């Protein structure tokens, strides 16, 4: 191959453009526009096909073969690119949209030039595949007769389910919510992941033979004993159980909600569900304060803006991250730098180093938050005594992450053991302390990225398969 490539420094990196802010905040459709396949091809040709591809070897939890699919795209072999992509990733259309792009951060070109647009290439490949009708159910031509129950239909459960059904096992996924997808459905706003994208993939999975049982909570609606009796293996992928709370005066006031409650309600609303006024969390015309500077916070902000809030303020306990990499955080590590999401661009006030002291209410409803500034010395927080101030807050959304909870009836019913951090204890083969029972995903590692979830699902499925093949 005469691969004398120069495009990595002759062609500029080009990201998929956002729709204009004033246009996109009027709806919940995707914020991104797609690049043309031709542009994408040129972008893909920037990939250096490194001897040691850090993107593939180091960064991507799934080990996506970025150089390989980039080359296939460069050569206009989209089908081959799709096969390569699917060989490591069941759901590239999800990760292509919502992954933070670990691969791009560790791209060799990121050192002196600008990284290859690995993620956008990924998404375009798979969308092209859907468009061309190349993504068909892959129905196993052999039935093992073994039954597997998967608890939880988040990315871990889905990936595991698809891997196992393709190996000829009978797979039933139990989901306690009304809809399939876990956080893919309830946690990620539509403007980042349109639900049609999820449904399209679920359609393929159903045709492959996966049965989904919704509104079933194992440990309550179904007993562990029943599952252990009826199934040859059980995989618990029930995700992160509990949102972290904040314990300050005024917490019990109305108008203070967990982020996920807000986001999942939005997801259901968009599906056409209705809620009575009491239950509806409506940001319209309100001053919204988001506590927690992470991605969930940003998702809440984007959602609130689309619902017509008066203002959004996002506050974070930690100091503002640097604009550029620090020496202590060298390439190829994930850069701990200030990131600005599409939602942030839509009008969010961001405050750093802020401690929440008290919610101040009126009529039992939150109206203001008392905050205090914090400075950091040698990484340790030092409150600045004289810095108290007040933020207007009609609606407060708590985005403080998740904590383990060993008391769930699901866990108790199976009588599982836990590790020191309070997550389900598993061995290298994803086996829990109980025979036949496997666990994977956030439920064993705590809240994490979708790519990690998919990776867990795939690896655990492999273990389950080996277990069933003995």
């Amino acid at each position, binding site marked *: *191959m005469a691969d004398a490539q120069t495009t990595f420094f002759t062609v500029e990196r080009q990201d998929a453009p956002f729709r204009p802010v004033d246009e996109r905040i009027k709806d919940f459709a995707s914020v991104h526009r797609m690049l043309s396949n031709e542009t994408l091809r040129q972008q893909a040709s920037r990939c250096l096909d*490194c001897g*040691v*591809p850090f993107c593939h*070897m180091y960064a991507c939890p799934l080990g996506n073969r970025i*150089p390989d699919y980039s080359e296939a795209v460069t050569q206009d*072999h989209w089908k081959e690119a799709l096969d390569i992509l699917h060989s490591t990733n069941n759901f590239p259309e999800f990760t292509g949209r919502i992954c933070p792009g670990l691969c791009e951060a560790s791209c060799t070109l990121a050192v002196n*030039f600008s990284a290859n647009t690995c993620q956008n290439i990924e998404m375009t490949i798979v969308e092209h595949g859907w468009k061309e009708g190349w993504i068909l159910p892959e129905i196993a031509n052999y039935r093992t007769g073994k039954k597997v129950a998967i608890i939880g239909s988040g990315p871990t459960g889905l990936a595991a389910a698809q891997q196992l059904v393709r190996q000829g096992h009978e797979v039933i996924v139990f989901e306690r919510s009304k809809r399939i997808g876990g956080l893919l459905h309830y946690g990620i706003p539509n403007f980042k992941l349109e639900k049609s994208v999820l449904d399209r993939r679920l359609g393929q999975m159903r045709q492959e033979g996966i049965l989904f049982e919704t509104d079933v909570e194992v440990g309550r609606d179904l007993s562990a004993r029943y599952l252990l009796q009826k199934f040859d293996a059980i995989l618990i992928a029930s995700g992160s159980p509990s949102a972290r709370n904040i314990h300050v005066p005024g917490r019990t006031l109305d108008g203070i909600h967990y982020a996920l409650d807000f986001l999942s309600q939005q997801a259901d609303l968009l599906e056409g569900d209705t809620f009575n006024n009491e239950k509806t969390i409506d940001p319209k015309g309100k001053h919204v304060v988001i506590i927690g500077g992470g991605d969930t916070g940003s998702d809440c902000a984007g959602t609130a803006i689309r619902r017509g809030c008066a203002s959004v303020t996002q506050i974070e306990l930690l100091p503002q991250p640097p604009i550029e990499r620090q*020496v202590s955080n060298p390439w190829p590590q994930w850069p701990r730098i200030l990131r600005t999401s599409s939602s942030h661009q839509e009008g969010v006030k961001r405050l750093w180093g802020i401690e929440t002291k008290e919610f101040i209410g009126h009529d039992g409803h939150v109206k203001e938050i008392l905050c205090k500034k914090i400075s950091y010395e040698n990484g340790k927080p030092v409150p600045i005594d004289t810095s108290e101030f007040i933020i207007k807050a009609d609606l407060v959304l708590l985005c403080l992450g998740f904590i383990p909870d060993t008391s769930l009836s699901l866990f108790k019913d199976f009588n599982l053991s836990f590790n020191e951090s309070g997550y389900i204890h598993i061995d290298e083969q994803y086996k829990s302390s109980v025979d036949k029972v496997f666990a994977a995903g956030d439920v064993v590692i705590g809240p994490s990225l979708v790519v990690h979830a998919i990776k867990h699902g795939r690896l655990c499925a492999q273990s389950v398969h080996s277990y069933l093949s003995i």
Partner: protein
Amino acid sequence: MQEKQASNEVNNYLNQYEQLVQNGRYGLYRQEFEHDSCGVGFVAHLDGRPRYETIANGLHVLQRMQHRGAIGGDKETGDGSGVMVQIPIEFFCNRVSHIPLSDVASYAIGMFFLPKSDNLREQCISIVEKTCNEQGFSVLGWRKVPVDEEVLGAFARSTEPAIMQAFITWNENEDQHLQQKLYVLRRTIEKTVAAADYALDQFYICSLSNTVIVYKGMLTQDQVSRYFIDLNDELFKSSFCIVHSRFSTNTLPQWKLAQPFRFMAHNGEINTLKANIHRQKNREGFMTSRVLGKDLEKVIPVIDESGSDSSMFDNVLELFVTAGRSIPHVMTMMIPEAYSPEIQMSADKRAFYEYHSPIMEPWDGPAAVVFTDGRYLGATLDRNGLRPARYTITRDGLIVLASETGVLDVPESNIISKGRLYPGKMFLVDLQQHCIIPDNVIKAKLSRQYPYRRWIKDSRIELRGLFNPSQVPAIDHQELLEKHILFGYTDEDLKVILTPMASQGQEAIGSMGNDTGLAVLSDKSHLLFSYFKQIFAQVTNPPIDPLREQLMMSLESFIENASNPLDIDERQYRSLKLYHPILSSRDMVRIRTNPHEDLHPADIDITFDPEDGKDALERAMRRICIEVETLASQGHSMMILTDTHAKRGRAPIPSLLAVSGVHQYMMERNMRSNIGIIAETGEVREVFHFALLVAYGCDAICPYIAFSTIRQLSEEGKLGTLSAETAADNYVNAIKKGLLKTFSRMGISTLHSYFDIRSFEALGLGNPLIEQYFKGTVSRIGGIGFKELTWEIMQRYNQAYPAHRQMPKLRQAGGFYRYRRDGVPHYWSFQAISLLQQATKTEDYAIFKNFTSHMDGSYRTIGEIRGFLDFKETVAIPIEEVEPIETIMRRFASAAMSIGSISKEAHETVAIAMNRIGAKSNSGEGGEDPKRSSPLDNGDSMRSRIKQIASGRFGVTTEYVMSADELQIKMAQGAKPGEGGQLPGNKVTDYIASIRHTVPGVTLISPPPHHDIYSIEDLAQLIYDLKQVNSEAQISVKLVSEPGVGTIASGVVKAKADKILISGQNGGTGAAPLTAIRHVGLPWELGLAETQQSLFINNLRQQVIVQVDGHLKTGRDLAIATLLGAEEYCFGTSLLITLGCMMVRKCHLNMCPFGVATQHPDLRSHFHGKADYIVTFLRFLATEFREYMARLGFRTVEEMVGRSDMLKSTVPTDSIKGRTITLDALIDFPRRHDRKLMHAQKINPTLPTSEFDKRLQAFLTEEFWKFPYPVSLEFPIANTDRTVGGSLSGRIIKQFGSKGLADNTIQVTLHGSAGQSFGAFLAPGLFLRLIGEANDYLGKAMSGGRIAVVQAPETRFRSDRNIICGNVVLYGATAGEVFINGMAGERFAVRNSGAMAVVEGVGDHGCEYMTGGIVAVLGQTGKNFAAGMSGGIAYVYDPSELFDTRCNLDTVELEGVWDIDDQTRLKQLIELHAKYTKSKIAMAILEDWEAKYPQFVKVVPIEYKKVLERMKQNEYRDEETLSVTEEVYHG
């Protein structure tokens, strides 16, 4: 007293040697690795009258070639010298009184080496006498040959045999076939003695003949006549005298290996030896002889395998001569000239060669052979002309032929002709007819002796002549995928291996080295091919150049038949002729359906049922062998071993196992020649696979899956617009080129001689497997057997056919060339790179420790030998007692990386860093900016203390040599042993071009061999040259680890190198073919251990510094290397990584995104490396090494060197394959030893200035060196005066800088024959005018000045017929002028990059690889003129208008001299020539200029012309230069 002590030392050494070396083995050392090479010649009188003068002259010639021999570890024992003469009847008649001898030749004389012990000697004598009696001979008596043993060196004396002559007569009626009977007698005696119970290794018969006698021994050249008293007797008369002096890699006492042998003496090396031995054994299976009759049995086996390559050649020569062919005939068979279609020769002669090619494979390699059968006395040269042979004939019939000219002083006026042997040609004297027979007459006579042409026409069977083909059906996509998985194809195989071959017709190139583990130490499944590591040519024999000298090479082969080679009739040619060994699927159909009566094909299924029990594979192999035997006995002649039946339920047997197994099985039954073996296999895809199959006895190969894959790639549009057929053609071409390249790495020119060569180390194949299936293959660490092999096959099988009838979807990614998860693991992983960069940037030793523990751990998990060695427990010492890191770091050097392959910034940073810590940086091949010799303002220095001398000699000027503390001669490079180098045109910027003395934008090629090193004595000569010029620099020789490298190292020490670098196969590269990166060479552990062991047993270790490189990264690496024998260390890749390299592996594309390995200005601006990073890395490394030293209880590195007893092997017990190896040989440690002899003693690099240059310099006063004034001198000169002017030139440059002196300041006129390297490294201002003649390497690396070689006025023949100087003139010259009033030899002005020359005729390969300068040839040119010429201009006088047939037009254009500038330039040149040499030819041309100049042809390289034009228009821009890989694709 002192003497006694010395002899004790010797005895100790010998005892120890004997204890150590048993059955020719010690540790990794094997006696079979030994090499030798030499000087050779003869003196004769045409009248055939015996004279003592001839003997005296012969001995004189011998002494004059003293510098071509070598001396051993005791500094006084020669490697062997001797003479062969006619039996001096008169001498024996008069001087032997106790035996009645007549004065006519009525007896034969046996010259015996006998045991010293009386008892044993008596035994031998009685065997001799008894055998004589049994065979119809009788021993008249014995004579003890008078010798003076005081002359001998200590080693020689301690092993000196009793030398005795037996006088043997025969019954009158036995006169007929006397020669044959004596041959049979000698073989019988030899076999009887060998069969005797007691050790009789001292027994040897030098000669047993009624015509000739050999006197030889472990002597230096001048010891011969002093030792053998007979040779001083005036009655000792002969009409000829063949002489030989030997240069061997070993110093072990081997009297019998001295030459001449019974029929010949040889200078050079037989590269194809192993194949020749195998073939000879094979021939013996079906040989009969009308002449020898039943006695043939008595002489078989013909080859004495304890002999040297030359002695084996002699064995086979003797057989064929005795069996009835004339000696010129046999020589022509064994060393045929090239006869590729491009070469013009008569149809009869071509037929002669073609006819003999199925009978005798070429004994290929550099060779000048002198031979005689008593009547004919002759000499012949190999097809490549890699050894010199010059002759002189006088009016009174004296003939002198030798490796050099000027070895005998003959009055010039008495000479009627002088000449040299041309490649592949023969020189023959008939002592009975008293005439010299020219080559064309010999060959014409030989080729018309029988109707060869008719026989060939009638008997030839060719594939194209067979039946009509039918189409091959396309293969189903899914089935192909399954087959891919079954045969271990990865995505990379498709992408990196097949696609480039199919689209470009060329094997892909890559960069950086191989940093993956060994197949046997990996827990993954590997193809059997991956275990084999190719052996390659270095030092003792040169690799050859398959691109530029392709017309010497051939892929032709014959599927053999078993007709008797000793007979001459048409049946012998009756075999299938193939133009190359790759068969298409169509060819397979042709073969299967052919109607030819001699070709009966049969299919043999080489798959097996995996369910068939544990030993299914082994049983299948037995089944296959028996099947082949049965079919063969039923008359089938073409065995098609096919794995097309592989499918679910049938697993394929590795094709190499099947082929080699069948081949060996049939060989053992003497049935191999009845059949041809064709492998039809899906497994084979890359060049190396084909090469291996051929090397293990496969006649032809059909890679059907590779073809199907290419078809699919084409159909999928992955080959652009190429059709499947064109793509397949390209693929076949790529394999063909690759095969030639593979052979050439071994120094072999033809497939015929590569067949069955088995020159590989099977790293990790167990002995049972080797013995039964791969006999003759080196395997020194043991390894896997059938069980593990089956496991590997089943891994692939189970992936291809998973349980439950599932269908696999994808191939494995591979990951060999580009790291992939689940693929082949690499040492330079992302962790390793990140940790090392972090550690050095933040100067954090803790992170560095993380790096080293990660790396050390990976050796074990990935599979490197040192991962399985560990330190023995011992008493540690406090770290304070260990020498400081500062002294340790002085032992560090950077690996050779040229400024060209890496950027200026990176190159300078490395140099600064190394200088800061007192270590040495290496310039690499490609010169160095002289400005860098001056220190920088901040005290840093960018001077590379090591300057490399590689085959391209780029930038090797006198100034360059003078600016070095160490001069490194690169014989091979770890990433691409046996390859040259190349710098793509777009890396040749203005700056690079200026230091390389070339033109910007033109691709630069370094040839595979050094054109002045075809043999070990040539290396000695180059070392001598360099030491003359810069007497203070250490001379280092870079070798690459391979089996036998230790033996080569011994030779290199004897060539007087001060340092040896043993490079591991893993070394990096800017660009190399992928096969070379992966499959050639061995890890440094093996090479280093073998070198230490070999040097030690040869008593040479203390004379040389041993340095090691090839992925040294941790303190533990250094500790292990030191214990295995290294005392200095080089670092390459790791340094680049600290400077920012991320192993992107884009060096060859000039696209390094970190500015390290690129010349692109935009990319270079992104270089962020700092010298501090390297300094930190090396400090850390030394610190960690020091910790290991303390732990092991060593205070100094010196006391640690070679202490392999501190190591233990920790072979894994849990790894399925790894547990089968054993590393004991690697750490074998002599129980009795002297510590002083295990590491380098003080190395004193100075070698005295040559006497000649001393004399020269004596005339230059102190005053002169301050204020030079013109000096004119005159001297006589002889061939022993070598490198004349070298030392003086060095001094001039040192004193006056690169500009030297004003033109003609020192004029020296010399009379006589100059030795080698006349005027080498000549400095400006020196004018050497030689009246007489010169030997090889005139004007080597000339950097200015002027040389004129003028025919002596007494000479009475035409100058354009006079060979006045030798081969390889002006190699690597950068400036200066040369005028040669006569003809020069081969490779005139090779790699000239600036000198100007006028010559009156040149041999083959003139102006090869030239990159600059001007050459005018006023006379004849040989073949292949201007091959690879990329710069400079040549003007060739061509009145016959035939020049275009002799010119290699690949890279050049021919034009007339129509341009006025050209005319002026040419005329000036010729005028200068006339001025300096008074050349009659020049004057004749000038006199008639208007008529003559149109008869000149101008040779100008196409690229160069374009560049010149661009430069003229001042429009040169970087992006206009040629594409990166153009050279590779079109080369």
